[in-house]
Structure formats: structure tokens, C-alpha cells
């Protein structure tokens, strides 16, 4: 039981009621555009506090409105891929990948070495010195994935991580990603529209729905109210 989230959050006109229990598994988050998939990831990441309820990860309470407790993103040790990857534009691909290692207090040299190894392992070592704007969308997503996984995070949040890849690359990265994710403990959430991603990559699916067509998958019930 890695992640327990029960609560609600309001963002703009969106009200998200969430009740999720997830273990060491890969969870697909699906649902139509604008229903709150990214909002859910932001709550888990610590970029958006709950308005009510409680979030617990690996036994630690990260967000508890009743006790005025909120652990912000930088103290949560998450690995996140943003929808348009959000690579820092002024850093090379290598320094982007090295950033999470550097932030833990490692030396520049050591974090770069680790980043080079991680990129080489994924076969994108040749992109190391390129700036994000010099990379194709697919290459950027690969770099963002390596960057999200390098810090051995306790929770992984991927927002449409394969969307910019073409069919062949997608298949290839999917296999690599599955190995990587299976090697890491903790809960992994993947927002995706792709049925193949869900089938091949994920252990189960959480479908965000409007309340009148509520879907329940036994362990979790996720509703969204407008």
C-alpha cells in the first residue's frame, strides 16, 4: 500500500474528488481532456495542495488539511514528466538529466557522470551536449524520462510521456520504460490516452469520469464533479 489519497481539490472550474489506494504498481490514469488527469498528478507531486482530505505515501503523510500539513514538491522525491516535458531550455540535455542528482547535493562532476551513464544506458548519450530546442519532440521526451527516473524517486508521475514519439520509437521506449519502472519500488502513475500503453505498460487503470457515469475498479474510485 504505497499511495493512499482521499480528498478533493478545486482548480478553476474543476472539482476533483479522489479516492485512490495503490501499491507498488503501474497505474494508468485515463479520461477525456480537461477532466483533471494532470491536476491529479499535480496533487500527488506536491505542486497543488488538497482542499480537503489526506495523502499518504509509503506511510508518510504528505498532505493533511485537517492538521495543516503539506510537504511541498521539492521534499517529496518524485520523478515527474510534464506534458510538454518542461526540459530547462538554458541547460544542455546532460545538465537537465544531472539536475535532480545535483539537487541532492552531489558534486557537479559526480552528477554529470551519473547523468552520462544514465543517458548512455538509454542510448541517448549522443544527445548530451544538445540544447532542448535542438532536439526533436521524441528526443526531448526520452531525455525527460531519463531525467525523471535518475533520482530513484519514491513515486513516479508521467504525463503523456510517449505522446511525441512515432510508432516505432514508442514501441521501443515502452519496453525500456517498463523495465525501468519495474526495477523501481513505489507507485507509478502514467497519464495516457493510448490503449496499447495501458495494455502493455500498466498493471491497472484508473478512469476519471463524470459522477453520473462513475467507474469503480474495486480498489479505487475516482470521480470528478463539475
Amino acid at each position, binding site marked *: 500500500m504505497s499511495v493512499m489519497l482521499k480528498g478533493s481539490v478545486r482548480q478553476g472550474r474543476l472539482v476533483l474528488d479522489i479516492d485512490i489506494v495503490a501499491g507498488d504498481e503501474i497505474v494508468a490514469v485515463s479520461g477525456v481532456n480537461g477532466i483533471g488527469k494532470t491536476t491529479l498528478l499535480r496533487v500527488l507531486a506536491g505542486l497543488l495542495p488538497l482542499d480537503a482530505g489526506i495523502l499518504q505515501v509509503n506511510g508518510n503523510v504528505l498532505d493533511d488539511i485537517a492538521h495543516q500539513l503539506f510537504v511541498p514538491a521539492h521534499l517529496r522525491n518524485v520523478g*515527474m514528466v510534464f506534458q510538454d516535458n518542461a526540459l*530547462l531550455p538554458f541547460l544542455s540535455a546532460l545538465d537537465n538529466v544531472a*539536475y*535532480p542528482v545535483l539537487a541532492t547535493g552531489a558534486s557537479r562532476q559526480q552528477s554529470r557522470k551519473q547523468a552520462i551513464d544514465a543517458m548512455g544506458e538509454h542510448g541517448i548519450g549522443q544527445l548530451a551536449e544538445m540544447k532542448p530546442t535542438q532536439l526533436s519532440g521524441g528526443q526531448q521526451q526520452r531525455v525527460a524520462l531519463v531525467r525523471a527516473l535518475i*533520482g530513484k524517486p519514491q513515486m513516479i508521475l508521467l504525463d503523456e510521456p510517449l505522446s511525441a514519439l512515432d510508432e516505432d520509437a514508442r514501441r521501443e521506449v515502452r519496453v525500456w520504460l517498463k523495465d525501468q519502472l519495474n526495477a523501481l519500488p513505489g507507485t507509478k502513475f502514467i497519464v495516457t490516452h493510448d490503449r496499447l500503453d495501458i495494455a502493455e505498460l500498466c498493471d491497472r487503470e484508473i478512469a476519471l469520469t463524470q459522477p453520473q457515469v462513475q467507474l469503480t475498479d474495486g480498489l479505487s474510485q475516482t470521480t470528478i464533479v463539475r
Partner: protein
Amino acid sequence: MSARGRQIGAETPKFVWVGAMLALLFLSLPLVGLLKRVAWTGVFASVTSGPASEALRLSLITSVFATAIAFILGLPLAWVLARIEFRGRSIVRALVMLPMVLPPVVGGVALLGAYGKSHGLIGGLLYDVFGIQLTFSPLGVVVAEAFVALPFLVMAVESGLRSIDPRYEESAATMGSGPSERFWKVTLRLLSPSLIAGVAVAWARALGEFGATITFAGNIEGRTQTTPLAVYLLLESDPEAAYALSFVLLAVCVAVLIAMRGSWLGRRS
């Protein structure tokens, strides 16, 4: 420039061409006049001797300090205006922008009201407790210049902060960077074009300050007489030096425009 290939209905009427040409002429004629009057062989000698060089030296020092003050105070203020929602934010913003539209002389009078030694709000206190007199001192020049330059910096930096995609700072947060590390490593980097533009325009404004300076700090040669004040006075006694100094200010402003071209004057290609 050619009107060929334009959509029907979007052709440029003739009077627009005429108006645009006249406007361009109106703006450029004085510049040509200034450049024509500059005695090129004597420029260097004129601005490196006598009151002109004193004024330039003073202007350089005071404008750099004024810009530094505008930077140190303006960056946090721009942050608050851009990123914190509070009641009355638009009123605060209007207040910040006021010195941009206020006649500089009025700004100088207002500064006297606040920091004047005998009648100012806190001028007496400053003098009695710290022994600081702003009026008729180089420090007063710095204050007057910073007062008029600050809004320009705030405006540039605020719009820069608003145009930063928040996901970059959010991604830095998920990678383990706390608020201050994010500020230094991410926000400042993304903000640097706006910061450069803001500093450049604030500095240019401080360098050219006339009204608030002469009202608040006076016109004491070698002490509070900045370059614009010197130009005004030299026009009577030594026109050649006045034109030489004017040319120097013009050249500095052109340099500032070139430095800003990436952020305010369209894209760097």
C-alpha cells in the same frame, strides 16, 4: 515594403505612407541636426576636460548606483506584482508606474517633501540621526535618478516574470529544488533577457534625468550637476561642449537600444 501580394482590402492607403514618412522625418531631423552640429575633431577634448568631464563622471557614478538601487528594490516588487494576488494590486501597480508619467519636476518637489532637510517628512530625521543630507548632495542625485528609473525596471521585470512558463519552476521543484534554489537556478536564468532590458532602460532613464535632479539635488558643479544639467548650461557658455556631451548621451542611448533589441524591439533572429 511592396504592397504587392497583399490581401485585397488590406492595401495601404496613400495618406498612411505620407503620414509615416512625415513622422519618421519629424523624429530623425533633430538627430541629424545634432550630429551636424557636433564638432567631431573636438569631441574627445570637450568631454574630457572642465565641467563636461566632471558632469560625465558624476552622471556615470550616480546612474550606476541609481540603477543598482532600482534593481535591488525593483526585482522583489516586480515579483510581488507579478505573482502574488492581493487586494488592491492594481492600485499598487498604478502607484509604482506613477513616476513614469509624473512630470519629473513634480517628482523632485515630492522628493523634497519627503527627504528635504528642514521641511521633509523624514529628511530632518535622516540628518539628525544619521547625518545624511540628501538635498544638494550626490546622494540626492542618486535618489532622484532611482525614483524615476525604478518603474521602468519593475515594468520590464514584471512582464518578464509573467511570460515565464510556470512548468519550468515546477519541474525544478519536483527535481528537489527548494524555493530559493529555484529562484537562483531557474527563475533568474529564464528572466535574464527581461532583467537586461529592465536594467538598460532604467540606466538610460537615470542617465538622462533632469527635472527631479535639479529640483531635489540642485545644480552644483562637480557635486550635483549631472550631464543633462551641464548640457543645458553649456549651451550658453560653450555650445561645442554641449553638443559633444549630447552626442555622448545619444551614443549611450543607441547602445542601450541595441542591448534591448532582443526583448523589447522584436525577436533576435
